[in-house]
Structure formats: C-alpha cells, structure tokens
C-alpha cells in the first residue's frame, strides 16, 4: 500500500492526561478532606461501586446488553475472596491481602465464562431474560449450599492477617480505602483503555447493528462473550474488594436481585452512553444508600421517582445533562440560560418540598403511629392528622409544579434557540 508510508503525527493528548491526573488526585485527597469514619466508609464503597458500575456498563452502555443478574459475578467474586482470605489467615494460601481481590476477579471471570456462553448468543430480550433467570438460580443455589455461602449468616473473615507490608495491616479503614482507590484507578484505566481497542470498538458496532457485524467478518457471539467475561472479571474484583472492606459476605445481600437492580439503576442514572457516567452513578448509589436512607424511610420512593423522571426526560443520565451544558458553555452561551436554571431549580425545590412533606406525613401515619401525629420535617413540626399541614403541602406542591411548567416552557424555547445558534456556528466553522 502506498499510503502506509505516510507521516504519522500523534499529538500528546493533554486534556486526557489532565483528566486522569485529576481523577488520581481526587482519589488521593478525598479521604483527607472528608476525614470522618462515615465519610471514609462511604468513599471506600464509592471506589468499589465505581468498578462495579463501570463493569456493568461494558454490557449496558457499550454493548447494548441489558443484564438483570450482574450481582452473580460480583457476588461470586466476594465469596471466593472471603474464602481465600480465610485460607490466607489459616496459612494454607500464600497470598498478600492486597492481591486477594484478584481471586475475586478470577472467580467472576470463570463464572461469567461458564454462565455467559449461552446468554451471549443473543442480545435483547432473550439475553435479559436469561440473566434474570441465572441471577435467581445462583441466589437460590448459594443459600442451599451453606458450606460455600455460610447460609443465612454468611461467611465472615479477618483482613488483618499475615505480616504487615511496609506497616500496612489493612486494619484501619483508611488503608482499605487506599487499597480500593488503587484498584479503582487501575480498573477504570483498564476499562477505558478497552474502549479504545479493536474489541472495544467492535462491541459498539455489535450494540448498534449486530446483523451488519456478521457481514464484516466478526462473530457477534464471540464479541459479546469476551466482553461478558471481562466484565465478570472486573465485577469480581469489585465484589472481592467489598468482601475485604466488610469482612463478611452474605449471599442474601451480595447475590440478591436488588444488587443487580442497583447496578442497572445507578449506571443508567449516571449515564450509560458515556464512559464516565457510571462513575457518577456509583457515587450517587453510595450516597443514596447511606445518606438518603439515613434521612428518610421513604428513600426508595424518592429514588424510584428520580429514575422515572430520568427515563422520561433525560435518558442519557446525569452525564448527558452535564455534557450538553458543557457544550453550551463551550460556545459561550451558558450566560443566556442560567437564570432559567435558577427559576427551574426554585420551582422544582418548592414542588419537591411540598411532595416530600406529604410523603413523609403518609409514611409517618403508616409506620410511626405510636409516636403520635406530629413529625419533624425540615425543622418544622407537621401535624399529619391535621388538615392544615396537608393543605399547605399540597398547595406548595401544586404551585411549585405550575411554576416549574411555566419556567420549563420558557427554558425549552431558549434551549432550542441556543442549539440552533450552535448548529449555525458549527456550519460556519466547517465552511471556513
């Protein structure tokens, strides 16, 4: 080929180095900014969640495979890790604790290879149904094998074993955090790198048009299968890190369909169409699971509502919302709509406060009746059996929704106009 002698110039991608550097810095300094015990526990869980959601998104966002059973692979990783940890503690396995999560990764990989061969033959509904079935199957099976899963009590272990390496015992939470942070950075980088390889790109092609892929020489089954196995590997690592963090693995928790559902839900909320979306999703997952759950008993209801609105109005997740506004900002037009955001935010807040007051009163009446009709809500005392509180909350919500709709119409107009301007600008630049 004559062209193969072309001169190839690859500029250093400065932006990418900055982003990855920033990611490393955030991972490093986060526990120094938030130093409380709760914060460090949450940060550790976020690191684990990031690996799990990114692994899940290899299937959902990159490959168009909707899995309802990914907890199987993180769960098997967790179980094998905790057994390995016990063996290390008993002296029958010579492995430093920092490498034990890799056992989880291998467990996830092998499990995914065994269970994924059939399901990856097809995408779409058959794939989703098979993963759902396998998820239930493994869940039921694990509880039936108490030697492996410890039954309802789970399997517990101790991560402070063996000789400390450079003073690291993994006793304090902060040391576990940094172990997770290192794994999180490496796994994220590896999964990002994968999207830049022939296999990663063909995965996108399989997502978009599996039929055509077969006519350019690729076996779609094999592409899906390889990715499924790799995704199982990373999910297994996440499970293993979770096992080391908690020092206990309970099948009713790590293999439960709710865990699979959480991966799906938060990966979607974060933004499945963008590589970094699941990172946002994982942060949100831990935040909701810990903080929101602490704040209100009705947190799953709020989460469900959020999911509903995201599916309806922003199917690209938070990542797409951020990127669309960054685009507007890059063209210097964010100044034109930020007042609209204030109006939207204010109206939404009013509607939310009204709705939340009613939800909380309802929950209070159903669950805490013995405590009397009064409840604290955002610093105020509401009487859940009085007409006033209900009327006030309902009024606030209705007014909030009304204002929101007005603000939304105005905003939609502005947004459309800005997008048109941007299109024109792009055309103009192309013509140059």
């Amino acid at each position, binding site marked *: 080929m004559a062209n193969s002698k072309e001169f190839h110039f690859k500029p250093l991608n400065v932006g990418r180095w900055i982003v990855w550097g920033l990611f490393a810095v955030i991972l490093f300094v986060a526990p120094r900014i938030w130093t409380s015990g709760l914060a460090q526990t949450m940060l550790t869980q976020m690191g684990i969640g990031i690996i799990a959601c990114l692994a899940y998104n290899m299937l959902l966002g990159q490959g168009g495979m909707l899995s309802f059973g990914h907890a199987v692979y993180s769960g098997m990783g967790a179980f094998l890790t905790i057994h390995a940890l016990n063996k290390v503690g008993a002296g029958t396995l010579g492995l430093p604790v920092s490498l034990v999560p890799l056992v989880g990764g291998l467990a996830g990989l092998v499990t995914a290879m065994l269970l994924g061969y059939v399901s990856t033959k097809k995408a779409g509904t058959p794939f989703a149904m098979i993963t759902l079935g396998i998820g239930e199957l493994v869940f039921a099976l694990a509880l039936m094998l108490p030697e492996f899963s410890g039954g309802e009590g789970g399997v517990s272990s101790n991560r402070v074993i063996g000789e400390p390496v450079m003073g690291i015992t993994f006793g304090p939470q902060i040391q576990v955090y940094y172990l997770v942070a290192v794994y999180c950075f490496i796994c994220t980088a590896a999964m990002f790198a994968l999207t830049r390889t022939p296999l990663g*790109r*063909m995965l996108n*092609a399989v997502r978009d*048009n599996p039929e055509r*892929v077969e*006519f*350019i020489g*690729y076996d779609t089954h094999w592409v899906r299968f390889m990715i499924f196995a*790799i995704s199982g590997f990373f999910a297994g690592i996440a499970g293993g890190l979770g096992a080391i963090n908690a020092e206990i693995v309970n099948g009713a928790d790590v293999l439960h369909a709710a865990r699979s559902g959480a991966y799906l839900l938060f990966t979607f909320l974060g933004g499945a169409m963008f590589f970094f979306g699941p990172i946002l999703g994982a942060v949100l997952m831990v935040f909701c699971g810990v903080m929101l759950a602490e704040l209100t008993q009705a947190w799953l209801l709020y989460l469900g509502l959020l999911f509903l609105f995201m599916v309806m109005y922003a199917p690209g997740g938070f990542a797409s919302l951020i990127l669309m506004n960054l685009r507007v900002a890059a063209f210097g037009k964010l100044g034109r709509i930020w007042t609209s955001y204030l109006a939207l935010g204010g109206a939404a807040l009013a509607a939310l406060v009204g709705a939340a007051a009613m939800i909380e009163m309802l929950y209070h009446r159903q669950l805490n009746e013995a405590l009397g009709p009064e409840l604290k809500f955002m610093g105020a005392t509401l009487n859940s059996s009085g007409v006033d509180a209900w009327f006030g909350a309902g009024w606030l919500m209705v007014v909030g929704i009304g204002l929101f709709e007005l603000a939304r119409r105005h905003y939609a107009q502005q947004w459309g106009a800005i997008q048109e301007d941007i299109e024109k600008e792009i055309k103009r630049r192309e013509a140059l």
Partner: protein
Amino acid sequence: MSNSYALELRDVRKSFGKTEIIRGAQLAVQAGERVAIIGPNGAGKSTLFNLISGRFGPTSGEIHLHGQRIDGKKPFEINRLGLSRSFQVSNLFTRLSVFENIRCAVLWSLGHRYAFWKFLADLEDANDRTEQILEMIKLDRKRDVQAMNLTYAEARALEIGITIAGGSSVILLDEPTAGMSKSETKRFIQLIRDVTVGKTLLTVEHDMGVVFGLADKIAVLVYGEVIAFDTPEAVRANAKVQEAYLGSVLAEAHA
C-alpha cells in the same frame, strides 16, 4: 472446473415453509466480471443474495466461492473467505462516526481480530486504509459525523464503503441506487465503478440505466430460476427473456 469461477451456484433451492422461492438457480461468474441480476418483483433476487452471503442457508444445492463450498456457512465465515455484501436499506453502525464505521469494516481483514491488547489509534494500517476508503467514497469531510445524521445519499455511500472496506474480491450490492434521484444515481454509478475496479461484482437492480451502466453481463431471474445469463445485447435479443419479462422494460429503456 469450478476453480476458474469466482462464484458458482449449482442447483440452489430455497423454500420458506411450503413455498419454494429459489428453484434450482444456476450461475457461474468469472473473476472480474460485473453481473447485474434483474427480474420482476418477487423473483427471488434478494433471497438469492441472502443465500450467497450466508444470511440463510439454502435448502439444497451448492454455492462455491473461488472453488470453495460456502453454502451453510455463517455470514462472518463467508466474509472472511472474501465475499462482502451491501444492503438494500442502509445497514450502518448508527451511533458511530463515519470514520469508525469504515474502520470497523477494515479491522478483520487486516488481522486485528478481537484484540484487546492494542490501541486502535496505533493501528496505522487500519487508519490509513480507512482514510483511503473515506476518500474513495468522498465522505472524508464527514468523517466525524454520526452515521445516523448522514443524508440519504451519504448513507448509501457509507453502505458501499463498509462493503468494500475489507477488500473482498467478490462484492454483492443489493439495489445500491434505490431511492436516489437521477443525477445522484449517475454520480453513484461512477463511484461504484471506481471502488470495484478489479473485483467481481454482482448487483441487484431495477433501474435499467444502472444495469447497462454497470454490468458486463446480465442474469435474468424469474420465479427462482436463472433463465438467461449473457451479455446485455444477447439478453436483450433473448426470446425467452422477452416473453417472460423484459420485452416491455427493454423497449422503454431503448425509447
């Protein structure tokens, strides 16, 4: 012997349920020939392409590619042996850019297979080949546009680009100019001629202008049988063809 043919169909039959669509089709195409397959609606032209490219397996009969039997093989296996096809309705990777669409189509032929240990950006052979193809199909200025945002004619060009990108020696084009305006069609025929130089080409076409513009030989398919396979002049003169189907159409084309 069969080795001298690029593509050979021997008594190929295909039934869907009780209906036999292809009834003993015979065809032997020499390497480098350009063949247009014509025939009335429902004659089985698209089905024939689907059988050759492996989308369906034939009920009976044999299909040979460069002397090697390919009937019953999977589409990707047939593609790896050097046969590539386009689709009547553009069949693209909609959310990938034009550049990525073409690059996906060159990867296998350059031996990159399922590699996950090397970066696409470093595959200079694949990137150069992709650039070449983009220039050939005149989409180099649209390289970063998502395939779903292309105009109709651009999408058709990309469809052809994906088909030829892997360097297959036998190219099947299913109605490449369907839905195009007269002037677009004219430009497009030239494009197809340019990108398929030295290759064996089979096209399904309705437009007689395209047929005479592209083909050295015409195969007439009626009710699942190839009733004539010859040069355009000979096919025009063929009494059986005129009787079955072509008379009126050819007369129009002549007028």
